[in-house]
């Protein structure tokens, strides 16, 4: 049960991992322009990391410290709330960066548009990657039978 897969599987997984990660990052960063956003990209990235987990065996999960993941998750959450709080001059979640032309305020359709939304997508993506990965790692390490 604890045998990892063959060398071929590992290599193929490593190869595809690059594409999965690029695709995930694309989905997150273009969230305000194209379908997708923080959550979708985050799940895709998490799925990539989990592919590593499957291909390289579950002991791989031990190499990534649990604390790092929970820190990243917390940072993602705080960043999201801070960005939402920026709008307190008007109302919570008010997109002040865009309405006041402070940052990311180019014309709709350009990459640097959308105000706080791309930043929010980033923080949500961070939170989702860290959350799902840590949940899965906890699950896969559970019971300590693979060692």
């Amino acid at each position: 049960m604890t045998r990892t897969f063959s060398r071929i599987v590992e290599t193929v997984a490593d190869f595809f991992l690059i594409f999965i990660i690029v695709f995930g990052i694309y989905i997150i960063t273009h969230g305000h322009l194209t379908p997708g956003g923080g959550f979708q990209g985050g799940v895709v990235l998490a799925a990539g990391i989990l592919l590593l987990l499957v291909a390289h065996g579950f002991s791989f999960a031990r190499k990534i410290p649990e604390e790092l993941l929970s820190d990243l998750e917390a940072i993602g959450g705080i960043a999201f709330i801070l960005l939402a709080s920026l709008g307190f001059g008007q109302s919570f979640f008010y997109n002040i960066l865009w309405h006041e032309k402070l940052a990311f305020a180019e014309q709709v359709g350009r990459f640097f548009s959308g105000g706080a939304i791309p930043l929010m997508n980033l923080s949500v993506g961070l939170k989702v990657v860290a959350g799902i990965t840590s949940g899965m790692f906890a699950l896969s390490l559970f019971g300590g039978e693979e060692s």
Partner: protein
Amino acid sequence: MSHLPICGIVVYLTAAFLTPLLYKAHRRVAEGVFLASTLSNPVLQTLLILELSSNSWKPIVYTLGAAGPYEWTYPIRIVLEVDALSAFMALIVTSISAAVALFSIGYMEEDGLQKYYTLFLLLDAGMLGMVLTGDLFNLYVFLEITSISSYALVAFRKHQWEAVEAGMKYMIMGSLASTIILVSIALLYGEYGTLTMAQLGWQYRHHPTGMARVALAGLLAGFLMKGGIVPVHMWLADAHPAAPSTISALLSGLVIKVGIYSAARIAYSVFWMGTDVRLLGWLVVVVGAASIIVGNLLAGFQRDIKRLLAYSSIGQVGYVVTGLGIALIPGVNPEASRAALDGALFHLLNHAVLKAMLFLSVGAIVHSLGTRDIGYMGGIAKRMPLTSAVVLLGAMGIIGAPPLNGFVSKWMLYEATAIFNPIIGAIAVLGTAFSTVAYGRLFYALLGRESRLVADRSPRDPGLWMSVPMIFLAAASVLFGILPRIPVVGLVRPARAALLSPGSYTSWLKVAGGILSSPNLPPAGQPISVFGSWVPAVFLLVFAISIAFFLLIRNLSASGVRTVGEGVKAFLSGEDERDFEALQLPGTSVVWGFAEAVKSLVNALKREHSGDLTVYLFWLIFLYAVLILLWGGA
């Protein structure tokens, strides 16, 4: 625009994400943030109430992400809508969780896991969001935040089989209920194209459709499950004892109340104005009355003290739901209708205070003894005088003993139910009788002879961190009992008025016609006195029915005598008492005779609580189907 409505939620969420980061730096810092956020929140909600009352309780509408809710011609933004009822609930949620948070600093010392603070704060944020929100989308999101963190907290002690089993059942039942709620929200959206509750109420008033009624059936079934009402209460008795005691206090004190609140908000503010809700109101009254009987009765037959409290929660929430159901029925004596609603809301507040206090103090006892069996708690009152005093005070409050707050709200409910229907009134009285038996055993046990376990462990009263919240809650209970006018006039009446005037809930909408008036609204009358009205004939009838019940039980009771054995441990000291071998109990003795009398009923009920998840799920689907058939199809 005032930002008070959102502030509480933001404070909780920020603290929830900060604590795991700070925990690594220093544990005390994380605890400080945890305490600061939970203790500051009641202040924020008090300010919110002051702002509301200074504006003659006109609902505050707060729009997320824009200056106003209107994008086109109808409200499209996500809104928070705070009226007197929401603010009342928000104050309860934040104050009780502040007390519990203070207690858990001392209590969770050993478990001390950083996840606990995050989950606790997320649970608070979810509940606060549920009571403050003004649209169904948000309600669903916050409901799920609440539910998921409570599943996680029930299963917090994963190394115990009990927590795992209870968490599993709770989670699967709760998820099915959430799915039913989601489907109902989808149906409502498909019907009316909006999820803002005020807008939905307006639409339903003008175009009531069958599909919307089906949706209401689903929403009610789901939220009644979250509120632990018979027949979908089975998870509660498993889940609440399995959690750590602080979490039990939150779950029993607040989470189920928030479920009831959501059901009431949807039934009253959205659907009440549209159609005749007589049948629905009766259905709610019947499930409430069933909860009163089942919960309080089964509480008397538990050896596990936390399970006793959990069953008693079902019974007490039954009172709240009965009161809410009575006011839902049009054509009831308006005095009774108002008294029922006052009583229900005040009992909601009182039960939150009392159950939090009971779970915290019982938690301290369980913590120091290492067992939850009442039989081993004999004579602990001498060793832990403060804690035991709080337990017994809470027990008296729940029974409804006169100087305490439970008495006032129960009295209002007795009167309302008696005027409404004498049989329901007698059931309300009977429920109190059952709960007296249940909590009476605590008096025997705690004040009785010292058991060997207590002598061995020699427990002591907990430290300052844990004593202060207990004393605070006990003081609140006594204060509300002696001076019920303060909470009733200050908080409960405005909340009741808000619930009974759905027109004001929708009044901010830019629609023709202004404020709606409901066909179901009872005509305005003289404000009812705190203790209601006195109608001798009705009360005589209720008295007669109660006596008939009593005689029935009395006649069923065993006529023989019984030698003391295993079964009375709980009332003596918990050990097999050699000295008491000769003691004999006659069949008329309160506790044993009563137990014999209702044994067949209790055994039938216990068979129904078989622990089989499939049966529990079946009951949820059954309730849903009954609601749809009786009300959706009509």
